[in-house]
């Protein structure tokens, strides 16, 4: 297991390095990044002085080294538009993105896990089929469209009918979380249903479930206590991955609901030609995703000693 963990850590470092190289090269792929700042009217000496100040006169590997050094200190540079450190802006926006992702994950689990359990217990019945349909629908719905349709129905239509409507944009009280988090969570319900179902089917076949039944335990206790507890291991680790995925998907949902998170900030930065911000968001979310994946994998081998990993 030690070797497996060491390998996973090494791979994660490679992945992080890969992201940094990628965003670093992308920034320089179309030529001189200083062009964004430098006006044509500026005298050439001043422009040159500016390049020297930004370190752009150095060879590219030196620039990358400086970039990495700054990064390791948490310095992501300054925003071109906001004239503030990108790190500061990220810290400000993160709670919105993170809280939305957590609520979305909660919603997905509340919908997906019971549905998965039921479809395993009532395998081959109408319930199983219904769960399958929900799973397929979840996987096939574009979340930006689902978000707009939910806004239209629960926000606009309800309001027009004089019914209590839901807030459709911005972040405020608990009610503002309902539509965005459902939109986000809906997409992953599918994965949760399928995983819970197959995991439950495995567990329901096992000896200790037969034993529990033989002892004359109530079937409900057997399913929801004995079986589900063990079936939850892969489901919980998968939920960790979902959280990482939500951070990536946050751009879309935040854009739809005008949610003030990092995803929306990245998109605004693209249209505002503010590369340091785009770069900062990509690196931060990328690293977050990689670290979560790593933790999930390590946790998985720790929780479930039955799992053996090959090093290849």
């Amino acid at each position: 297991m030690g070797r497996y963990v060491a390998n996973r850590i090494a791979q994660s470092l490679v992945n992080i390095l890969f992201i940094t190289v990628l965003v670093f090269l992308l920034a320089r792929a179309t030529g001189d990044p200083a062009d964004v700042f430098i006006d044509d009217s500026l005298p050439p000496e001043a422009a040159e002085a500016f390049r020297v100040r930004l370190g752009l006169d150095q060879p590219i590997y030196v620039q990358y080294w400086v970039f990495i050094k700054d990064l390791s200190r948490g310095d992501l540079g300054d925003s071109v538009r906001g004239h503030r450190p990108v790190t500061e802006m990220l810290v400000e926006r993160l709670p919105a993105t993170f809280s939305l992702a957590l609520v979305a994950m909660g919603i997905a689990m509340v919908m997906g896990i019971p549905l998965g359990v039921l479809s395993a217990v009532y395998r081959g019945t109408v319930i199983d089929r219904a769960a399958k349909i929900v799973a397929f629908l979840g996987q096939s719905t574009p979340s930006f469209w689902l978000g707009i349709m939910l806004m239209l129905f629960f926000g606009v239509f309800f309001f027009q009918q004089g019914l209590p409507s839901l807030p459709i944009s911005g972040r405020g009280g608990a009610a503002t979380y309902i539509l965005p988090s459902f939109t986000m969570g809906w997409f992953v319900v599918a994965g949760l249903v399928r995983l819970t179902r197959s995991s439950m089917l495995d567990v329901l076949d096992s000896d200790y479930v037969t034993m529990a039944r033989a002892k004359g335990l109530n079937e409900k206790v057997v399913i929801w206590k004995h079986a589900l507890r063990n079936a939850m291991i892969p489901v919980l680790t998968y939920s960790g991955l979902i959280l990482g995925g939500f951070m990536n998907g946050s751009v879309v949902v935040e854009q739809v609901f005008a949610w003030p998170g990092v995803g929306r900030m990245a998109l605004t930065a693209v249209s505002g030609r503010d590369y340091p911000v785009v770069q900062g968001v990509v690196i931060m979310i990328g690293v977050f995703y990689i670290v979560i994946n790593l933790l999930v994998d390590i946790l998985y081998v720790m929780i479930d000693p039955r799992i053996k990993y090959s090093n290849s």
Partner: protein
Amino acid sequence: MAQATGQPDAVIQVQTIPLHRRVRAGLVVLKRAPLIPMIILGVLLIFVAFAPLVATHDPVQNDIMNNLAPPSIANFLGTDQLGRDVYSRIVYGSRISLALSLLVIAIGGGAGIILGTVTGYLGGRADALVQRAVEAVLALPLILVALSFVFTFGFSFWNVVMILCPFVAARFARIVRGETLSTRERDYVALAKVIGAPTHRIVLKHILPNVFNTVVVISTLEVGHIILVESSLSFLGVGIPPPKPAWGLMVAEGRQFITSAYWISLFPGLAIMATVLSLNLFGDWLRDTMDPRRREL
């Protein structure tokens, strides 16, 4: 050419089934495919093939006097903010989605298949290196990377293809490599090796045909996935540039008119959902049919 490699291969040549019988067998199997997804995909193919005949209007022709018109006989699904016919734009939009996904599957998927089979078969350092690269690509946040890519190179049809290819290649490479690893241990591969068949021959004749079923299944599922990602990018304004009738873009354009003209966003979104759903159902059925080992319990 009486080399050691040519002759024994002829000996283990399996008798091939004539093409027409294989096609007929394929059609028999296809009859059992799920009906509704097949109909939806069929309609979609008609859209793609005969767009000028099926569409009732020019998809990019503005008709500002007739903008935001609700669905009617003249405009089945209404018109958008510039008076363009929503139905005709959906019809033409199918071409964009399909062309893009096929290109990405051909380039990215093709590269992934080659990488997966060759490195999976050879093993060793090349395999380890490609594995690391595949993992690194799959760990990237796709939409955000696409944003920074678009930031640098601007947005266009080809840029979307270029962004998606590495991701699709990585997914293909990972799955195909797994299949190759198990195929590699089969007796007939060992036999081919013993009789001295060169590597490229073993990969082409013995490994590839055995991962073919898997490739067909993941290609189907990937097309759905690609359409979803492309439409998300187009929705965000960093995918297919206007005035092209990309479905995701249409949803985005209708967003600000959602209270007065819901049809502009509703129908293109339904088109995406129906297409992806059909591809997923069809792919799932294909997997059960062609690749029983990977079937869900």
